């Protein structure tokens, strides 16, 4: 897929992103930076006050050399002793005013920029949470992290100093040059003009520096990605004893970052040296011409001193201009990288039919930025070439509404970037309360099929209906309230057991949580040191494999969904526990429609019917015994031959037993 913006390097993301994903509007870094002003809006008044304060502050700073001039001209040269004290006191007063204004400026801007950084980060998090899993799959996680952390602090730094100084520096320049010209027009004009090359230098520098900073940012993102992977995969690296190899790979990437850093420093050195030279050259020139002017009485001695002092006051703003432009540049690339994410509209959103009103699960967020991106997504979702003509919402029959009647209608699904679809027309119907086992070989697409129901991905064609309504026409929160799943890898978080079980249900009662844990046979929780409040470690790593699986199962049970999707829910359980969970699940499943992925006959026994997924379609549906008898493929998948007793090949299965009999 083409990168979303013209300058986004290909390697920042995986190659195989959705080809259908519409590229976001390309924008230059400067445009992106300018767009950030929407986040400054709450602080406009403050910003205005601050800039005023800053301008007043530099003005009073500039006034001090004028006092110096008077001191030298009238007191020192003419010997008017009486003026010395008031003039000195005036200088001190101006100095105090400058300091006071600076204090005000800094104090007030700090809350503005910190607030802005926080808001953007919150929004970014908010937006990322709404982007579909396919998006997250296609982005290296380090890249997202480096945008949310590094790029945002770069922007904060620029917003805090860059913006204000940019304005005050220009003001300083104009004011000083005007003063100089007033004191001696030709000398002032020359001084002002000599500073112009500096601007050219800055602009040239900025252009080259931009390329390097973008490169550096991307390389750092890649490095962060590897760091993150190595942290997540630490167990594998350790158990295979691959730490040296990992370190070598990390070092190779870190060296790339190093090289770019050194290149950057070299460029900076050249630039700063040039910058330093210009003002000094101006002072040298002033000394030459100024003494000339003084000796020709075109300028007073105090005037010359003021000239030099004022010119010195010009040095910092001009030098800083380079710095500001450089950080501005970095901030602009950072802004571009951030808008790259903001401009990626969620592909999976409430369709127009579902109504916008129901979609507000975050009422606090009303700013225009959301509206615009959502609108784009909705337009795409409803008007694009995505799903072929599909029947508009068939009005659900009142009797089935809310019952959990799930149908798959010619569902096909192709992973973004994959050459051929995984699912090629799956049709299956689950009546309310029914439990269907989904059986298929490794990699046949069972997990893929399940994730289409809660719309973690959208079908490529065909449709899935819940009680007659296309799932794409249901408001997302409603759909996901009615459907719950237990994934094949129990996704747990480093929080308390309670939090992990209650996960999406915010107001779950203690009893409900315990009941869910009981149903999942997770009685071990009682033995944990702090019971329900025990933190279970990152990804639940402080639990055993089977314990993790049961916590995840309890989570799905607690949600009390109409449709329960269980992806191989018993794979990590021993036979006895499995039997107990199966028995308990049988009770839970009477109220829910369930689709259960199964690899073992024991899990299949949970089900009323079995669907065999093969070659991307449901090849057969029926009862376990029927399929065993009629479907050779099913027999192959489920037969225990050669497993179990050694040397007991070809033993025939001793017939079907029902789950209830155990």
């Amino acid at each position, binding site marked *: 897929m083409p990168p979303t913006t013209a300058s986004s390097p290909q390697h920042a993301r995986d190659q195989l992103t959705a080809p259908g994903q519409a590229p976001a509007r390309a924008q230059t870094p400067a445009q992106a930076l300018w767009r950030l002003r929407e986040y400054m809006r709450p602080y406009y008044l403050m910003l205005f006050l601050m800039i005023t304060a800053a301008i007043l502050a530099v003005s009073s700073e500039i006034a001090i050399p004028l006092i110096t001039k008077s001191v030298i001209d009238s007191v*020192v040269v003419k010997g008017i002793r009486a003026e010395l004290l008031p003039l000195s006191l005036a200088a001190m007063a101006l100095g105090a005013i400058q300091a006071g204004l600076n204090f005000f400026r800094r104090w007030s801007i700090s809350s503005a920029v910190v607030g802005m950084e926080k808001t953007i980060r919150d929004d970014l998090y908010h937006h990322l*949470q709404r982007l579909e899993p396919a998006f997250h799959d296609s982005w290296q996680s380090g890249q997202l992290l480096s945008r949310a952390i590094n790029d945002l602090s770069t922007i904060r730094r620029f917003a805090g100093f860059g913006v204000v100084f940019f304005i005050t520096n220009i003001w300083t320049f104009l004011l000083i040059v005007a003063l100089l010209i007033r004191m001696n027009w030709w000398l002032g004009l020359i001084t002002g003009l000599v500073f112009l090359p500096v601007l050219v230098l800055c602009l040239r520098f900025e252009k080259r520096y931009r390329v390097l900073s973008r490169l550096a940012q991307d390389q750092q993102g890649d490095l962060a990605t590897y760091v993150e992977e190595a942290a997540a995969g630490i167990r594998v690296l350790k158990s295979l004893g691959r730490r040296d190899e990992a370190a070598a790979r990390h070092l190779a990437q870190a060296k790339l970052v190093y090289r770019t850093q050194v290149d950057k420093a070299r460029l900076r050195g050249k630039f700063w040296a040039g910058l330093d030279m210009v003002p*000094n050259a101006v002072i040298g020139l002033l000394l030459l011409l100024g003494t000339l002017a003084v000796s020709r009485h075109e300028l007073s001695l105090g005037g010359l001193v003021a000239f030099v002092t004022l010119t010195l006051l010009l040095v910092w703003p001009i030098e800083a201009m380079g710095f500001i432009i450089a950080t501005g540049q970095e901030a602009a690339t950072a802004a571009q990288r951030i808008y790259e994410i903001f401009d990626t509209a969620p592909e999976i959103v409430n369709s127009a039919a579902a109504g916008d009103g129901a979609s507000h699960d975050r009422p606090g967020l009303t700013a225009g930025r959301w509206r615009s991106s959502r609108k784009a997504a909705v337009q795409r979702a409803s008007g694009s070439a995505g799903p072929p003509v599909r029947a508009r919402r068939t009005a659900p029959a009142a009797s089935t509404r809310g019952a959990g009647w799930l149908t798959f209608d010619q569902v096909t699904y192709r992973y973004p970037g994959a050459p051929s679809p995984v699912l090629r027309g799956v049709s299956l119907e689950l009546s309310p309360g029914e439990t269907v086992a989904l059986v298929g070989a490794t990699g046949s*697409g069972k997990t893929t099929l399940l994730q289409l129901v809660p719309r973690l991905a959208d079908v490529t064609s065909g449709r899935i209906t819940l009680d007659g309504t296309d799932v794409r026409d249901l408001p997302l929160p409603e759909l996901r309230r009615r459907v719950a799943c237990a994934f094949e890898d129990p996704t747990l978080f480093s929080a308390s057991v309670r939090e992990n079980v209650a996960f999406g249900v915010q107001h779950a009662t203690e009893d409900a949580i315990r009941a869910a844990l009981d149903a999942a046979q997770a009685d071990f929780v009682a033995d944990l040191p702090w019971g329900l409040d025990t933190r279970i470690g990152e990804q639940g790593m402080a639990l055993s494999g089977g314990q993790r699986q049961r916590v995840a199962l309890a989570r799905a049970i607690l949600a009390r969904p109409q449709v329960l999707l269980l992806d191989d829910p018993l794979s990590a359980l021993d036979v006895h526990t499995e039997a107990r969970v199966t028995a308990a699940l049988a009770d839970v499943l009477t109220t829910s429609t369930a689709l259960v992925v199964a690899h073992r006959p024991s899990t299949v026994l949970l089900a009323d019917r079995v669907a065999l997924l093969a070659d991307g379609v449901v090849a057969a549906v029926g009862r376990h015994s029927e399929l065993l008898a009629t479907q050779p493929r099913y027999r192959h998948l489920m037969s225990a031959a050669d497993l179990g007793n050694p040397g007991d090949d070809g033993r025939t299965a001793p017939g079907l037993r029902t789950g209830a009999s155990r």
Partner: protein
Amino acid sequence: MSAPPAEAWRGVAAEQQEDEITGKLGTLLRRRSRRLLTDLLGPYRRLVLVIFLLIVAAQLAALAGPWLVGVGIDQIPQLTRTRNAGPIALIIIAFAASVLVQAAATRSYIAGIGRLGGRVVLELRRRLFAHFQRLPIAFHESYTSGRVISRQVSDIDSISDMFDESLASLVSAVLSLLLVGGGMLLLDWHLALVVMAGFPPLIWLSIWFRRESAIAYRQTRTRIAQVIVQFVETFGGIRAVQSFRRESRNEDIFGELNQANADANLRSQRLLAVYFPGVTLVGNLAIGAVLLYGGLRVIDHQMQVGVLVTFLLYLQRFFEPLIDLSQFYSAFQSATAALEKISGVLDEAPSVPEPELPTSLPDAGGPAARGRQVRFDHVRFGYRDSTVLPDLNLAIPAGQTVALVGATGAGKTTIARLLARMYDPLQGSVLLDGVDVRQLADRALRHEVVLITQENFLFSGSIADNIELGMPGASRSEIVAAAAAIGADAFISALPDGYDAQVGKSGGRLSAGQRQLISFARAFLAAPAVLVLDEATSLLDIPSERLVQDALRTILTGRTAVIIAHRLSTVAIADRVLVLDHGRITEDGSPEQLLSAAGEYSSLHASWQESLA
């Protein structure tokens, strides 16, 4: 209607959370991080010296300017009188020379610092990464990957930023302060003393700032790490987050952490807001005082006008750097706080340390005997408070295949982890051919014992890359052979890019079973003396499992193996079965023996037979 308070979500754990530090601990931290810094800079002493000299040169050249201006101004009366431009021309030439020297020196020292910083940061990255790899799993469990990442990403970045942007300015500001002070004293010590009167308040202000900002910046580092942790976890589990509508709760939590981080940032910014203007104030008052006192001295002919001018120009150079100083000092503080955190990690001694003098294992006896003998000798082990294995005694002769079965949570994985030395026993020892695993070098141990964990993790990269992890440097044909042996070749070859197919983030582009097969292929390729398989086939369909088992039968001949499985099908290839119950071995024997006895195993087996229906 009230959601549980957001702080409670984290839950309780035995390990200490990273607390915000104050007082004495601060001194310790500073000392520790200073030691690290000297250590890092050690190899670059020469470069540091050169940079230092360059900065001195640049500063001296910069100081020459105002002085020359003063001298020039004092030449003016004479110039008006004699019309001899000679001295002025000389001064101008000297001025030009100083400008050139300054430019050249500046250019080289900035590049030099860039290189130095780059080197130091590279070394720091290297050490940190290697150290994290060396630290035991127990450490990672309590430290969490989010913090591991934040140490290596955001902390290192702030150090790198310091070198990039502020170190040069910081050093040159300090130098210019000293040099200008010295220069002023030489020119006119009376007036210089007036300037110095500003020092006590400045020093007081600086000490206050230094103390406060150290605390504030430490806090920002801690808080940003918490933000990172939440960020990483959320998007690592995005499917669960979305399908369980966790978004808004997550936003509350994230919002809170982010707010705390913002508060910490605000605090440090506000310190700056007090400090900078404070310095400006002192500086400006000093200018007024110099005007007053200097003016008097000039009127009284105790001093020349040129000197007063030089003083005024110097004052700008004197207090302005102070502003720079504090500006960059904040970057410096932030970097210091980061360095403290990093040095804390680097100081963390692995609780599963490598031996100082590793013992080597005896040579395996002949080509056929590729296995090692394994022995658990009175091993007691528990995670934190609870005891998982009270007293384990177990001997596995070389070449034996042992199946370990038992209820979930019985401690099977724990045994596997001890054998692979992910943890060390609290008591007793784990022996390999009679040698305590604690006596073996890490490399040697990993060569002998390979554990395929219950959590199979793939790195982003190609399938071949991931399999190769089992044996770095393996050729493509070896990789293909390993995959083919366990029956993974068929699905891999069917992928558009075959073995070069990208597996995606954490292997997300493969199905769970396919990921498990890849992990298995790694083990096959590694072919160690002792192979430990923890639920390595639990996600496979039955035909694939069967293929894997056939492969196992071949590869395990002569090797020692511990196979943990709930699917008793795996037991079929075992010579011996152990039943574990609450950390104790309750049954031990060949499958046939146990089957005929009326114990747990035969009951498990009966249920399993039944389930195979």
